């Protein structure tokens, strides 16, 4: 496979409807599916890090593992690359190969660590070329591959820099280049953007999403940031307390959450119940996202008082309080002029059902 060729994924057709036609992705020749069968992890002191779990990452797919800290997502990632040994009875397959007992150094997995773990005693080029050096690739080929990789992450000019001369964003890209230089069958990223400041994270998230689509490599990303998971993952696996809560496309998770945990974790979810709700909407519990609320002059339906108004540039956020004390949040366009203390009518904007668009 030639990682440096961007056009590859455009050439052949995809099965199933891609989420974004312009970024359609097909597995490259070497992309492998990862299959976890009854994978569990118990620490020596007896605590369960991971309940037995089945999970399949399709070839060429990017799967985001999303969850709060301590939910077992990093443990799962470390089991896939072999740095953590799964409990007896667990099984991990890469394609048709059982790798459960294969050592990390023989798995051919590219890993980007949370703190990047770049080698301080080597230059940027030395870091990127290290995996190739281990594999006995000759110096000339190595130099060529390293400059290809650095071109891919747009760091050609910094090849001879020391690691401590790089900014956080540059380090992240060096770590990525080092991980993909070995042409891994599987790429794993552990919180790849967490160490960066918010503005840079926004930019690198877009860059990383584009790069992963270009590479067409099977990829697992661990993150606790729902926006990052939704942007980078073709599918997102939401985890909580060592369990898989739900697996699906970002749209499915957002619109048809399988549990209150999933609903809460992917953005704000409002819940209203009681007599007024039953009277106006004919249901016991009304659940909705803040952007699905429409505010009108009071009189027609459910009524609330505006407690607070936050102007956020592209939109305005209102904190609302019903007469019986229940609270909810509403997002309105930036031109909404309601002020705190005013009474408004609440109605819901109907939203289309989620599109099940599994890639590949």
């Amino acid at each position, binding site marked *: 496979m030639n990682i440096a060729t961007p056009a590859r994924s455009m050439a052949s057709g995809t099965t199933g409807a891609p989420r974004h036609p312009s970024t359609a992705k097909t597995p490259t020749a070497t992309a492998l599916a990862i299959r976890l069968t009854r994978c569990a992890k118990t620490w020596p002191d007896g605590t369960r890090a991971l309940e037995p779990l089945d999970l399949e990452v399709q070839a060429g797919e990017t799967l985001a593992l999303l969850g709060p800290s301590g939910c077992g997502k990093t443990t799962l990632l470390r089991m896939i690359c072999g740095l953590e040994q799964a409990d007896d009875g667990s099984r991990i397959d890469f394609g048709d190969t059982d790798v459960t007992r294969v050592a990390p150094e023989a798995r051919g997995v590219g890993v980007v660590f949370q703190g990047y773990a770049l*080698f301080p005693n080597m230059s940027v080029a030395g870091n990127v070329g*290290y995996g190739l050096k281990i594999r006995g690739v000759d110096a000339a080929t190595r130099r060529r591959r390293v400059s290809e990789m650095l071109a891919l992450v747009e760091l050609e000019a910094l090849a001879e820099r020391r690691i401590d001369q790089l900014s956080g964003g540059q380090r992240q890209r060096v770590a990525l280049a080092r991980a993909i230089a070995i042409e891994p069958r599987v790429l794993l990223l552990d919180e790849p953007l967490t160490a960066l400041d918010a503005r840079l994270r926004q930019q690198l998230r877009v860059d990383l999403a584009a790069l992963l689509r270009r590479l067409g490599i099977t990829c697992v990303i661990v993150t606790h940031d729902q926006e990052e998971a939704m942007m980078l993952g073709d599918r997102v696996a939401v985890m909580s307390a060592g369990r898989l809560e739900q697996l699906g496309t970002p749209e499915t998770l957002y619109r048809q959450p399988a549990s209150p945990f999933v609903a809460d974790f992917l953005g704000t979810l409002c819940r209203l119940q009681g007599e007024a709700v039953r009277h106006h909407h004919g249901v016991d519990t009304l659940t909705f996202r803040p952007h699905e609320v429409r505010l009108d002059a009071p009189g027609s339906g459910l009524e609330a008082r505006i407690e607070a108004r936050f102007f956020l540039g592209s939109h305005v956020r209102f904190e609302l309080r019903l007469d019986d004390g229940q609270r909810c949040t509403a997002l309105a366009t930036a031109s909404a002029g309601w002020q705190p203390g005013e009474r408004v009518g609440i109605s819901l904007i109907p939203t289309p059902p989620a599109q099940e668009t599994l890639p590949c």
Partner: protein
Amino acid sequence: MMAAPHRAAPLTSRGGRRAALAGRRAWLPIAIPAATLFIAFWLLPMAKLAGLGAATPQGMESSAYWLVVTQPRYWHSLANTVALSLGATLATLAIALPVSRFLARHPHFPGRRALMALLLFPLAFPGVVVGFLVILTTGRQGVLNTLSRALTGEPTVLAYGMAGLFIGYLYFLLPRTIGVLMAAVEGIDKQWLEAAQTLGARPWRRFIDIELPALSSALTAAGAMCFATAMGAFGTVFTLGTRIDVLPITIYDEFTHYANIPVAAALSVVLGLATWAVLYAANAFAGRAAHGR
């Protein structure tokens, strides 16, 4: 961009300049006593010592320095000291590194505290006690000799030769070195090793490529400390009463037995210079090795 002039302003203002001056003056009360101590207890005695070495000993025709560098007796003593110290330093590092790695990587195992206490126990021992320990183990009445005679009928006595000195030096160098290296191993980021592992590096390769470079400054520092300590070691050698001359013993002999103060002074200066020269060379070598990769 808006913040730049605001941040620059206090520095150019009068208050800022006064603060900067005060900052510069603030260390004077500390610097003056430090400089006084340095001059009184280091510079003056050292100058006196160096001056003494230039004197001509009684019944001789040339300065003590000239004698020290021309007479084979002193040369042998210097060569013995450097060889013994270098050998002991390298052996100490070679033994201490795996031990420190093991202890740093296994923070919990039964008996770890006891083992640590035992390993660090000889730290406080004076050279005399270390010498005595060597005699107990490898002397004429020692454990080794008893065992050897029982098994082979031949006596094995190491205590009073080069081997005995070597063992004695290890006794007092190892505890210090293990402490320093353990801290250094604990300071290595585990993710570096894990990253190397996922890139395909097997244990030996990870040790050479990642661990050793990360430990190089600690190894250099520990090695320098070992070497300098060994060069000046006196009590152990004195207790063992070996026929092998090392410089500290030679200096002691010149000073107390022959009252040859100029030669004792000249030898002290030579001991200092030789230690410095070897450490300088080792540092330069380590530095080049680090840059070479």
